[in-house]
């Protein structure tokens, strides 16, 4: 009997579980956990990526597992969509696990390392199982294990009240979302009572049940992905978790939600209606703009990255919405283009965001500091981390020739076709949407300059930063792997699109790989050569050639004299590190331009104060307008119920007596 890719994946997921279990053998032995188990987990990730890479190009396989309830066995299936997301999971997890091998070490507070190793690998395995689940039951079991294991990972450092609070918020929203997903499957089974995905595929839900299912899916998966207005857990949970976990959550877990959306919309429902796309597009654009504007004013580096995740998920959701729009109007090739951009952005975001989260992890480890206001100048002390994160910084800012640019470019190309939509209002609104995407992309450049400049450049803002150590070998290896991924994904778009093509073909009926390679292996041509083409390799080659010529030219004719001296700064001699821009200062223009979207609280000192302190916080207005009133409503409702709770046994006895009487009267 030959081992199919699905069997291999399931085995690898169980190996992850076993590695997690092995953590209990010596739960306090850091060397064993960090240097043996985590690298083993990384190896499994690599193998999984290899299996998935092979499976993308093969026919779907499915099987029934000898697990589950007696009459309700687990079904699993591997098709190109699952395989693509498994590839993402495996390859990113490999880098993160190697990094984690250097991250967890002696003297950390909180959860035991063995327990941490267990949760971590259960988290990984459940994400892999979510991607291959083929019935609602298995899917929900895996989905919930994912939510629970990540909850325990978020609350690793559970001695701090705010971390427990962040974990609670995360758990709450995860479960509200999970309920919506469960109901979505209920709407999809279409009265057959069968919860296998095969049965759901066979049933064509009418427009009403289809819409109900789609909206529930958007709500449920959107809660996991961090779409507006269910994003509030993200900026709380990501900073609370240890950095490898934040990286894993942001890079992979958010993508499982995207996977769920794609699976339900294009596979289980099958025929989306065009106006669903408008909803997804609007929510996506709102999230993207909201995320990046808020990222610009953050002062905690992990919160900044968390808000930037909201932005990227927003971009992905916009691409998803655009795909539905094109699909709804039967413009198959364009739907394939939009879906390609969406999937490409998924894998890009997985690589650069995990790279940046791990970089902040290294900084946090070395400096014990995550407030941007207390860092600075780390490029001198931590050159490895600094230069590798420069790659991630440029990639996430969407700059050529790195990977972020390719997906944004494809997305914008797809948007440029929207005037062809056969709908009078849409083709007006959608170009405006392209403008918003452009604004978001430009703002992300701003945010990334702030992030990189404040952390790595300038003078160290604290004296202790002069002593910090660069990341160790394990961490460097993890960062190097992810940075290499960013570069490779940017330089070889045709290979990646060839892969994505296998996914878009079953979902939209079309692929863009054929015409993309029409002008030769060097050029990416999504539609036609007259329309647009881009060649990252040529781009990089010419740019580096020009840099080399400029440098050599100057070398050749220049005497090369150089002198080190104090900074000039317009002749001001008393320069110190506190005169640099702080993170707050750097965010000020954005705060001012988008002032009405923030809820700003300022405390201004009195002019006679000998030690003036100026404080300013910009908080999320949605929290105040939506969540707090909602929570207050719940509290009020429960307050009404507590009237019954008297705390006296005689009153409770009367309750039982009245109940008994009522039952006797009415039921008989």
């Amino acid at each position: 009997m030959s081992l199919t890719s699905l069997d291999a994946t399931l085995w690898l997921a169980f190996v992850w579980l076993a590695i997690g279990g092995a953590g209990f053998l010596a739960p306090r032995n850091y060397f064993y956990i960090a240097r043996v188990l985590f690298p083993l987990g990384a190896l499994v990730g690599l193998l999984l990526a290899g299996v998935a890479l092979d499976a993308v190009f093969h026919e779907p396989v499915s099987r029934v597992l000898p697990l589950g309830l007696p009459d309700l066995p687990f079904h699993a299936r591997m098709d190109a969509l699952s395989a693509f997301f498994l590839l993402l999971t495996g390859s990113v997890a490999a880098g993160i696990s190697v990094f984690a091998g250097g991250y967890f070490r002696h003297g950390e507070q909180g959860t035991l390392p063995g327990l941490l190793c267990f949760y971590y690998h259960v988290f990984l395995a459940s994400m892999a199982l979510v991607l291959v689940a083929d019935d609602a039951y298995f899917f929900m079991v895996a989905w919930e294990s994912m939510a629970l294991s990540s909850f325990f990972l978020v609350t690793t450092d559970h001695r701090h009240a705010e971390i427990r609070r962040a974990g609670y918020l995360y758990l709450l929203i995860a479960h509200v979302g999970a309920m919506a997903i469960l109901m979505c499957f209920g709407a999809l089974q279409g009265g057959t009572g069968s919860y296998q995905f095969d049965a759901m595929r066979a049933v064509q839900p009418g427009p009403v049940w289809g819409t109900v299912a789609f909206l529930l899916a958007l709500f449920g998966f959107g809660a996991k992905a961090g779409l507006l207005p269910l994003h509030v857990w993200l900026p709380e949970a990501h900073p609370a978790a240890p950095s490898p976990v934040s990286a894993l959550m942001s890079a992979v877990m958010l993508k499982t939600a995207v996977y769920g959306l794609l699976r339900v919309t294009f596979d289980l429902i099958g025929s989306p209606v065009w106006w669903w796309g408008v909803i997804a597009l609007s929510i996506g654009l709102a999230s993207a703009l909201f995320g990046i504007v808020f990222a610009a004013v953050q002062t905690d580096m992990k919160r900044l990255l968390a808000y930037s995740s909201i932005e990227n998920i927003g971009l992905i959701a916009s691409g998803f919405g655009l795909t539905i729009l094109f699909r709804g109007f039967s413009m198959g090739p364009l739907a394939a283009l939009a879906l390609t951009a969406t999937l490409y952005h998924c894998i890009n975001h997985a690589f650069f965001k995990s790279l940046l989260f791990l970089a902040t992890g290294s900084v946090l480890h070395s400096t014990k500091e995550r407030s941007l206001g207390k860092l600075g100048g780390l490029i001198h002390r931590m050159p490895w981390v600094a230069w590798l994160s420069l790659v991630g910084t440029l990639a996430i800012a969407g700059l050529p020739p790195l990977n972020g640019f390719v997906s944004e470019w494809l997305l914008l190309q797809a948007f440029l076709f929207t005037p062809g939509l056969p709908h009078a209002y849409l083709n007006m609104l959608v170009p405006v949407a392209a403008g918003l995407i452009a604004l978001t992309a430009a703002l992300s450049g701003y945010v990334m300059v702030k992030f990189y400049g404040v952390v790595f450049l300038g003078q160290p803002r604290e004296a202790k930063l002069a002593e910090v150590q660069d990341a160790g070998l394990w961490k460097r290896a993890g960062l190097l792997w992810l940075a290499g991924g960013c570069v490779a994904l940017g330089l070889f778009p045709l290979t990646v699109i060839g892969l994505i093509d296998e996914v878009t073909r079953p979902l939209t009926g079309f692929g863009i790989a054929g015409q993309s390679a029409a002008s030769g292996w060097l050029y990416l041509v999504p539609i036609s050569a007259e329309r647009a083409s881009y060649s990252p390799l040529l781009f990089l080659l010419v740019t580096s050639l020009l840099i080399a010529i400029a440098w050599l030219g100057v070398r050749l004719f220049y005497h090369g004299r150089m002198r080190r001296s104090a900074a000039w700064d317009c002749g001001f001699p008393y320069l110190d590190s506190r005169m640099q821009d702080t993170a707050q200062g750097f965010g000020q223009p954005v705060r001012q331009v988008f002032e009405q979207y923030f809820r700003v609280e300022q405390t201004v000192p009195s002019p006679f104060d000998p030690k003036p302190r100026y404080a300013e916080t910009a908080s999320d207005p949605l929290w105040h307008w939506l969540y707090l009133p909602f929570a207050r409503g719940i509290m009020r409702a429960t307050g009404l119920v507590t009237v019954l709770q008297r705390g006296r046994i005689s009153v409770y006895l009367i309750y039982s007596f009245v109940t008994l009487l009522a039952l006797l009267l009415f039921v008989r």
Partner: protein
Amino acid sequence: MTSAAGLAAQFAELILAVLLAPMLTGWVNQCRAWLQNRSGPGVLQPYRMLLKLFRKEVVLAHNASPLFRIAPYVIFACLALSAAIVPTLSTDLPLNAAADAIALVGLLALARMFISLAGMDVGTAFGSLGARREMMVGFLAEPALLMVLFTASLISHSTSLATIVGTLAKNEFVIYPSLAFAGVAFTMVSLAENARIPVDNPATHLELTMIHEAMVLEYSGRHLAMIEWAASLKLFVYSCMGLALFVPFGIAEGGDSAGILLALPVLAAKLAVGGALLALIETLSAKMRIFRAPEFLGIAFLVAVLAMLVRVLLES
């Protein structure tokens, strides 16, 4: 895809841009001097300045990182490449297949990112202030620029600059109202991006108002020369982009070598007129407060979106 004539045109464009860009800056300064009743230093002054800077030694701050020293070359290379992408002499450019209008915007953003990072590197108050302001102007101007290019690309159904310019140059007698809006937006964006009045003043060293100059304060010698050269190139690129989009006549089509020879004086004439107009705008307007810059660029963005809507609604 590539022909020998195309390669030759590509090289000619690149070298011409790199060599002539400082002259355009000199011409604008000269015109400004004339308009202000000064005699002016002549159009060759930027070359003299570059030569002077190249002769000087570099004085580097103690905590300048390698990034600070690499950045001038990266910025220079980015702008030289963008000068090669914008069709100035011919539309048969091999590099146009490698990078389209969106990649051009990305390239300019890359240069901006590096100059801002370099500005923050030494850790002076002015450096980070300049970087912050530069990025603010950038995030407001970049989407407007993209919208302008999108409007043009909706007309020609292509984001390749060569195709855009080719299409626009061929339809001589069609007037596009959308391009009029786009032209206004583009002018506003280029004023801001090139650190000209009314957004920034290229001649200022008054600390509190400067943007571009604040970022490059710590540079000296060869590094400063590269930065200054790159700034001239940027002005050249934006001027050529404007000319190519809104006055695309006289650019050689395909591999027409006689056309290239003819295109050169046409380009020079167009640049001379454009530079004089820029000097006129700068002389007639006053520099705004920095807080007004978002409004200025917000208007540019809205006008650019309007251009796109006009294109979609009225012209299709």
